[in-house]
């Protein structure tokens, strides 16, 4: 394996962590950013600069790679769910839902209607929490400390709601094959409506202090432009794709759960620059709030019906059934641990906060997957750092990196 990474000297010989530079030509310097850099997260961006201009760039990822695809081959089907949600712990429902749905396809199981609504409920709560997390990190990048503090504080509202619903702040393992683990607690929809009102007010505050801030605008406008054609060619995904003018969202183009029954729009911006990507995320939070309102209405109007497919809990012991019927809580019966999935292949995708995640699941009829291939949104967006950075100033790098909302644990899997 000769000729590994062009910037692999740090890996092989010098072993110095962090940021260092090396002179390549008369005027070109090689600059290593990360993986311990406070901004870049657990990834390394290597740039070659001529003066202040980036002439070439590369991303060296994999610092938080946890071999999920391999590990899942040694786990029972159900145990892969808590494994996969480690990709993006604050976006756990969105990340694991396509896996659950792929296995449901192989099992020929449909979740009950109420379970579908509850899945959408947590998906949208997760989505807002993940966007706010992204905004916070973006604030750090731009040296805007208020925009770091505020979204992180407001994220707590959504994390608390998720905790109330599922019992865990993060890594909820909420959707399981055939349904969800818990029904909504009493008084939940009122709290949800309050949170929605609060968030709408806060978005207005964000606009005043961050989005319309002339300093922020001058840092972001016209920076990191990804034209529509290039965005498609690079196959980037999520809000970044839609900010470049491509109207594509899995929730619309391949509707899953009850998204086709809900009334919402897919915002699209044409500019494709870092500022458009910020506006895109603000608009998407608004749409998520709209979806949550409709889900809250539905939950208020409908009686508590089963949240788990009949197939799974009819064989459960009487005590389990009692808990299930009286408390709306699923204590997973042993069926899940010994479950064998019929042989076959399934492909399923879903829209997470950062973009489209897809699972290729293959079973050979055993109690463990034969092969699970995950392609996460950040892994698909990583290619941007190779093709979009050159030509920009070093100062623009944090603005572009933050606006892409790249999340290393999710990219590395």
């Amino acid at each position, binding site marked *: 394996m000769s000729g590994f990474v062009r910037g692999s000297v740090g890996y092989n010989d010098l072993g110095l962590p962090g940021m260092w530079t090396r002179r390549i030509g008369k005027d070109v310097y090689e600059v290593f950013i990360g993986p311990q850099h406070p901004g870049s997260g657990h990834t390394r961006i290597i740039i070659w600069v001529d003066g202040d201009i980036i002439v070439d760039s590369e991303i060296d990822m994999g610092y938080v790679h946890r071999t999920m695809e391999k590990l899942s081959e040694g786990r029972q089907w159900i145990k892969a769910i808590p494994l996969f949600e480690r990709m993006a712990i604050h976006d756990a429902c969105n990340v694991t839902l396509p896996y659950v749905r792929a296995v449901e396809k192989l099992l020929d199981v449909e979740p009950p209607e109420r379970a579908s609504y509850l899945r959408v409920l947590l998906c949208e709560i997760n989505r807002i929490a993940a966007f706010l997390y992204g905004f916070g990190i973006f604030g750090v990048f731009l040296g805007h400390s208020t925009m770091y503090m505020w979204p992180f504080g407001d994220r707590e509202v959504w994390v608390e709601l998720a905790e109330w619903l599922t019992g865990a702040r993060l890594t909820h393992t909420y959707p399981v094959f055939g349904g969800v683990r818990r029904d909504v607690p009493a008084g939940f929809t009122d709290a949800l409506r309050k949170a929605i009102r609060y968030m709408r007010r806060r978005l207005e505050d964000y606009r005043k202090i961050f989005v319309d801030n002339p300093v922020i605008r001058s840092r972001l406008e016209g920076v990191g432009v990804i034209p529509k054609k290039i965005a498609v060619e690079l196959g980037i995904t999520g809000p970044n794709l839609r900010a470049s003018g491509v109207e594509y969202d899995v929730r619309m183009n391949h509707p899953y759960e009850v998204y086709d029954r809900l009334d919402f729009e897919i915002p699209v911006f044409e500019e494709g620059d870092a500022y458009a990507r910020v506006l895109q995320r603000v608009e998407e939070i608004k749409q998520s709030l709209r979806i949550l309102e409709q889900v809250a209405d539905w939950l208020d109007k409908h009686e508590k019906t089963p949240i788990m497919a009949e197939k799974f809990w009819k064989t459960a012991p009487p005590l389990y059934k009692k808990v299930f019927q009286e408390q709306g809580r699923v204590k997973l019966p042993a069926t899940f641990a010994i479950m064998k999935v019929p042989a076959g*292949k399934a492909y399923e995708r879903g829209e997470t906060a950062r973009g489209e995640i897809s699972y290729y699941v293959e079973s050979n009829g055993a109690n463990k997957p034969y092969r699970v291939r995950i392609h996460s949104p950040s892994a698909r967006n990583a290619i941007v750092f190779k093709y979009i950075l050159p030509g920009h100033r070093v100062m623009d790098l944090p603005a572009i990196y933050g606006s892409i909302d790249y999340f290393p644990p999710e990219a590395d899997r």
Partner: protein
Amino acid sequence: MNAQELVERIKAVLGDTVKKIEVHKGEDYIEVEVDKDSIIDAARKMKEFGFDHVHDLTVVDYMKEGYFRVIYNLGSYTVKELSYFIVGLAYNIPRDNPQTVSLTRVYTTAEFQEREAFEGFGVIFEGHPDLKPLLLAPPVAEQRPLRKDFIVKEEPEIKR
């Protein structure tokens, strides 16, 4: 458009190169097996047809049968009626000589994904501009950890 109509249209687009077409559960995933030698040609035709990006590149190791199955799962951003579907362009290569051609000339998207298939399974994509491991450190990547005969000592549950 439903899956059967799309199958007919793919047959018309790809012509003789198609060896087998299979619609998987859910009616939204179509696997098209083509000949290894005609993969670039088939990919070009699919791109013209509207599948504009590689959604995901999957390699599956069938150790007992002695081959790898390389599946380029293609998706469409720009053609709305196609965007509901994923089409897996698949072919088999022998396990002991996993040489094949890179699709980066057709799909820029494939670049990072082929690097991932290279490090996990050791599939050599000829014509790739920069074939090197993506996530793994070189000594680990040398062992091709995603192959079925790679044993993880700490995880005895992972069977071949």
